[in-house]
């Protein structure tokens, strides 16, 4: 298997890499970019703990090959904060204690970013529908839903 040259944008920075065809995106991010925010859970694209954004679309990084990000824009949870200032979704998760073990949190936060990009004023049913894409084994969904509602409120206030 020969390497494939890819160019892409990772958390706002242009990148070039050479990857094996069978390298998964989650392995590339964690092992080659040292971005450990995407967690390996089910390795079947079900649990969503490895969620990242590719061109603003949430995808399970365990179900994508690294070569598939060629020419794309990738955002991981590490790319959300601006220096020491957390993204408003991250802050909403903290303020609402929306995690216990935290394993699902980065995926939930990126899923929320994608949700609010498409639905800036989501109702509860839309939030629940979106969050059902990912799994929280601590079952802290009440706080997670509250955090998403809080984040949506912050987004609305910021856009006034």
């Amino acid at each position: 298997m020969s390497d494939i040259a890819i160019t892409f944008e990772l958390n706002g920075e242009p990148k070039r890499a050479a990857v094996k065809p069978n390298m998964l995106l989650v392995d590339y991010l964690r092992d080659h970019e040292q971005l450990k925010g995407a967690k390996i859970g089910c390795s079947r694209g079900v649990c969503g703990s490895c969620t990242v954004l590719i061109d603003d679309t949430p995808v399970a990084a365990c179900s994508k090959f690294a070569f598939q990000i060629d020419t794309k824009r990738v955002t991981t949870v590490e790319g959300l904060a601006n220096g020491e200032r957390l993204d408003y979704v991250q802050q909403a998760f903290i303020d609402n204690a929306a995690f216990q073990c935290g394993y699902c949190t980065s995926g939930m936060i990126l899923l929320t970013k994608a949700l609010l990009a498409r639905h800036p004023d989501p109702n509860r049913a839309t939030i629940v529908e979106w969050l059902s894409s990912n799994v929280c084994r601590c079952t802290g969904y009440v706080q997670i839903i509250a955090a998403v509602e809080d984040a949506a409120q912050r987004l609305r206030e910021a856009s006034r």
Partner: protein
Amino acid sequence: MKLVPAAGFIATSFRTLPCFNLVRAQTVAEAVSALDNSAEPAVLAGGTDLPARFNEGFSPSDLIDISRLEELRQVRIAGNAIEIGATVVHAEGCAHPLIYGHLPSFARAWSRIANVRIRLSATLGGNLMARRTRYEGAILLSALGARMRLRSAAGETEIAVEHMWNTPLPRAALLTAIVIPLRKGLVLDYARDLRPIMTQAVVLEDDARGRVVSATEYAIPRVYALERGNAALVEGEIELDDPVTGASYLKRVSATLLDRQLKRMGAR
């Protein structure tokens, strides 16, 4: 630990993927040719199912990436049918004006399958070609009498979606489109609240004919003809069975769901 060629000893992990040759097809003809020349091909479109298959032991010799073939992402009306390209992503397809305009009840049902994250990446063709009984595309499309259009080196052929489970597909065939016949007054009701025990689609047409497709997580979807409002036919013919739920319970669930669905459709 196990020895992997070119990688040495590595931890035995279900994340260890086999080596394969990658073909990034630029045209449909190139993809068909690559399929024809491959000993053990796999096709990559949305990619939401394939890594799971790798983890289950699938080890293709060649991976043929068709995700950038625009020709397969088109939706169009052709004669008295709507053709949906094989790599149309669920979220795009169910919101497409042609599909929503001609088959609004199907569009609504399509917008509910799987989950949001999957719907944003996975394709309708991949849903079928994965050939997993728990996937929902075959249930909906069988109810609509849809056909799969396949292209291989030998030419083009079509197979009814409901027959895909028991009909050998042509060797090295590429699914290019799903063809749904447009029928006057067609309405579809989709019940997925009881998944994974049962998922059921009901289609009624203007001329009082209809179809019911009942499926469980573990059994091939079953298709039944339906006269408008006639549940007894289904109850008498239900043959669903799976190792988890059992036939008698599935029969009752199917009949109960059908009753609810027909009431929602105004047929009872």
